[in-house]
């Protein structure tokens, strides 16, 4: 089971950030969410937090998304020493998606009206 992101459907409403921070912290705060939405001019890009990595990249990468140049750090799922996203703002503790719910029922997917986030079940 995994979460599939279709960024072409994302409207940038950030309800996934609201859902995630409410689920994990009982408060609303995008900076405490394990999913973040990058708002671009032509499209929005949801990114789900992956594992923490001790090392930071040596070079700044540029990634092409739909013909647009983007900062590689935005597309990267890792929480790392040089990036502000996916860290608790007060403590700096790294955040990672834990596929919340029991049985798994990630809140971000539940709250996504645009179907930019969907659950994919693989055998």
């Amino acid at each position: 089971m995994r979460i599939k992101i279709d960024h072409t459907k994302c409207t940038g409403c950030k309800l996934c950030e609201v859902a995630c921070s409410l689920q994990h912290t009982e408060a609303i705060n995008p900076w405490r969410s394990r999913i973040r939405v990058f708002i671009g001019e032509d499209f929005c890009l949801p990114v789900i937090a992956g594992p923490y990595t001790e090392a930071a990249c040596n070079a700044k990468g540029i990634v092409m998304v739909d013909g647009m140049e983007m900062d590689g750090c935005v597309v990267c799922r890792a929480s790392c020493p040089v990036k502000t996203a996916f860290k608790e703002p007060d403590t700096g503790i790294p955040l990672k998606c834990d596929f919340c719910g029991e049985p798994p029922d990630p809140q971000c997917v539940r709250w996504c009206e645009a179907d930019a986030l969907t659950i994919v079940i693989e055998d």
Partner: protein
Amino acid sequence: MFGWKGKILRVDLSRGNCSVEDIAPDVRTDFIGGRGMGLKVLFDEVDPLIDPLGPQNKLIFSTGPLTGTGAPAGGRFIVVSKSPLSGAIANPCCGGYFGANLKFAGYDLLIIEGKSPEPVYLFIKNDLVEIRPAGNLWGKWTTETEKQIRSDMMAESDAWEINNTSIVTIGPAGENLVKFACIMADGGRAAGRSGLGAVMGSKNLKAIVATGTGDVTIADVDGFKNAVMEFLEEGRENKALEKRRMWGTWSLPGRANKTGTQAALNFKTGYSEEFTKYEDPAYIRDRIRVRDEACFGCPFACSKRSRIADPEYPGTTKGPEHESMALLGSNCGFGGLDDICRANYLCNELGMDTITAGATFSCAMELFEEGYLPEKDIGYPLKFGNTEAMFELMKKIALRRDFGNLLADGGKALAEKYNHPELFMGIKGMGMPAWHPQGFEVIGLQYATNNVGACHTKATLPFYEGRKDPAHGVEWTKQDQDYVAVVDCGVLCWIIYHGPLWGEKLLSWLGVTTGIDYTEKGLSLIGERIWNLERLFNLKAGLSAKDDCLPKRITDEPRVNNQVVHLDRMLPEYYRVRGWDEKGIPTPEKLEQLGLTKEGAGVR
């Protein structure tokens, strides 16, 4: 405390001081936030008789307890001030992310007062509040300003921080005190009506930058989550909202035109041949849409980002919404989609209200065609449909150059100067929105009695289910005006929460979010209190019943459906339903009932 942050950030630009104050608990409960709380501050602190473009005027950016919570379609903010266009109270509502980001930074309200000696912008990041020089930004168009600020931030912030920053800014129109200049936010949103861009310009304040990492909290987290889930489910079933999601307001120009109720040729008619192609909204969506663009926490994303193939306007912008299409398009005698997009783009970038800009142009065009306004004064043969002259003049308005200097004072001033005040289609100086009042008589009453002037977003339009019966028009107008005042306190979106559609949700959102036990009766009393306090501000500012009027064209010349609007019949009934005397002044009994006796002292 839940929902609210409980803090006001006050910035005195004359002294260069910033301070933080607590919001008194009873003010929170009684005025909720947004439009109500902003009004309370303005009424208490600003003499209604002051010059709106003088340093004594204040500009209040006001969020509500729901802003930033993710309560669906509740991410908006209101700007409250005294309008330079109407001389009345101003409270335009704006979407995007700015309201939420101001809350995350820790503030419900931001009060700007005084006047900076030189151009500055305000930078807010949590507790860090700085007034920074803006000499290099002055003169820039709105998107360019925003991009420059974001690029300057790269020295101190990473991509995610910059992306979670909101910027409100004025364009050249605000700097040059154009009376219908707007405040633009987040790359294309507008606090559009009432000319508050000029108030910001008069303070030498080019932009406000807000970002924050704080929490917004909810009283009943489980209740909130369940309410959202329920709401999303209902939303999926709702056909009207499905249309909004798909088309935004693009389904309306064709519909209004088809029924002959669209502003056209300075309201001389309600129909434009060139608009028949918009009866299929896909015509618009297929040609210009880039993406659906949601406000913070809104699952409906009715706003559309758009682009046309034109090297002169390379970027994207928001809209054009229905109002802009009608006022800048059919009302000025043209209907080509690219031309409408150019006009909308220019207004957004120069920072002016598309509605009053359109009404001002259509007024100038009629004056010209009737021979009341000579070509040598304008510099162009400004016939209806002369888009080229219009685009040139838009830039001149923003810089107050040549004839643009006259247009910059708005259509009312223009029509008066050329001795035909009856040809400006506006109320209290503000241009009338797209729906022709002769199509739905009650709209005429709504426009005429609106505290801010001719604005369509402060009541419920009479073609929605549950509001169609004209027999109840006056009563509904009063009720919906009060109700929308509370919607504007949330700050919820008028489009989603107007009268018959989900009125009851307002109650549940406020309840689960703040933990305060609001009742329906209590809320309607709050709405009525706000409406009356705004009225008192206007009366003290020198407005009176004679300003509750409509252009003669609407009341005397049957232009649409062979009908005129009988305002003379509706207005006395409206005053009676409101508990006001025949001069439109709230009676002492009404004021006492609303707890406004002190505020109403001396008003007659």
